[in-house]
């Protein structure tokens, strides 16, 4: 596996499976602080991505772009534009070879896209709390290659996800709860961690 079309295909399929298997978990998390639709929305979107004829794409970048457009047009809510923008930016920066620095730059571009679309910063109790530490951990380990940097990113991502539990939400629907949003794990950080975990299994 690697960063070629076969690797990205496996990554997207793995993530779609994870979302599908955990649809109730994601919806339950969203019920606690939001509106109980994160699981069903992400599942609808990733099933549409999984239904793409992935082998027909000329490059991993083309596939990632189509995946982003598909999510934008099928997910709705905040997750559609955020995940869609992530994949569109990833597509634009995806490396043409198995290049550790190139993957780091692509992940950074995806993070920048999410932050410019959603305006969230670290500590707002959003997917940024998982993705930002993941990108930083990746960059720190990038000299050791994808096989070391990606697992480091996955670990940091999961830690960031867990660290959302005590936070008070300042963005998204959970922010309406004020202090009552503390004590719940953020659903977006949870699905984002599934995405990175899938990458760890397929892109290395």
């Amino acid at each position: 596996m690697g960063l070629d079309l076969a690797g990205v295909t496996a990554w997207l399929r793995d993530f779609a499976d994870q979302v599908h298997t955990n649809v109730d978990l994601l919806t339950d998390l969203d019920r606690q602080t939001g509106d109980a639709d994160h699981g069903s929305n992400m599942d609808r979107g990733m099933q549409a991505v999984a239904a793409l004829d992935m082998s027909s794409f000329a490059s991993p970048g083309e596939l990632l772009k189509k995946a982003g457009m598909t999510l934008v047009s099928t997910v709705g809510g905040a997750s559609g534009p955020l995940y869609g923008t992530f994949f569109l930016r990833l597509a634009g920066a995806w490396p043409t070879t198995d290049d550790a620095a190139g993957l780091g730059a692509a992940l950074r571009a995806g993070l920048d896209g999410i932050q410019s679309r959603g305006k969230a910063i670290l500590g707002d109790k959003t997917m940024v709390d998982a993705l930002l530490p993941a990108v930083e951990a990746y960059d720190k380990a990038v000299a050791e290659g994808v096989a070391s940097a990606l697992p480091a990113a996955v670990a940091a991502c999961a830690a960031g996800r867990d660290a959302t539990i005590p936070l008070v939400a300042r963005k998204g629907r959970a922010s309406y709860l004020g202090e009552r949003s503390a004590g719940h794990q953020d659903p977006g950080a949870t699905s984002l961690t599934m995405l990175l975990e899938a990458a760890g299994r397929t892109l290395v």
Partner: protein
Amino acid sequence: MKKLINDVSDVVKDSLIGFEAAHDDLIRVDHQNKVVYRVDAPIEGKVGIISGGGSGHEPMHGGFVGLGMLDAACCGEVFTSPTPDQVLAATSVVDGGAGVLHIVKNYTGDIMNFEMAAEMAAADLGVRVEAIVVNDDVAVQDSLYTAGRRGVGLTALLEKIVGGAAEAGADLDAILALAQRVNANGRSMGLALTSCTVPAAGQPTFELGEDEIELGIGIHGEPGRERRPLPTAAEAAQLLVEPILEDLDYRGSEVIAFVNSMGGTPLIELYILYAEVAKILQAKGVRIVRQLVGHYVTSLEMAGCSVTLLKADDEMIKHWDAPVVTPGLRWGK
């Protein structure tokens, strides 16, 4: 879960089929994009008025499509904002050459999807799009540290008034200014007696005891700010009206008063509440000049209600009184 549906994943699709069949004299539905259009769209030279949002708030927004109100409504999944391509499709159809106004309720997802659609409309269609973001819910503290106040009941009043102005031939700048004035002068507050069940989730969004209410709810079954013992209608009216009057100075002004059911509260209770609201306003020197009581901005089957007070000027009253012929609101013609 006890609902009259065929399949949880077909709720919006199946409902739109019936909606079109029931109102084919007024509206058309693009089932592919889940967009409701007025039957005579686009209207040459008229500013196109588009709203949209998650489904589950019926009659808002599809039920407000027709003469004197909306040209199109984009229907998302239940409680999920519509996607940019839905909004883009609606924008291209209703554009009559005078520009298009997007009416957006202030939710993170709605803002992002409508923003992406407006960017695409400018790039792909060359249509001038302006947006009004409705944020009237006093239950949310308006600060830099939240997503800001939600758009709730005022949205229905704004859609009527702005739709009336567009029908009368106002241009996009005038309509945008009017929409901003309506948003600046309206406030809402809601409470829930029960939660509601999103079909895809299959169970209530929150649990509420028999003798409890959730005060300060939005319109998506999300929990509110505070849980309290069940009040009388008179006490409930106080709980809803006081935070509104504390937030904006209504003294000596004329208002459109809107008492709205969240879906499950029947009219017999809404009228009891309306009487209490009217009593409080009279004592405070606020004059009700128009009123609306009923099920307009709902949250599926949630029992509960909201109160919206709009300080109305002559222009707003004129467009409020103008004829409207939609599935959800009809008068004056």
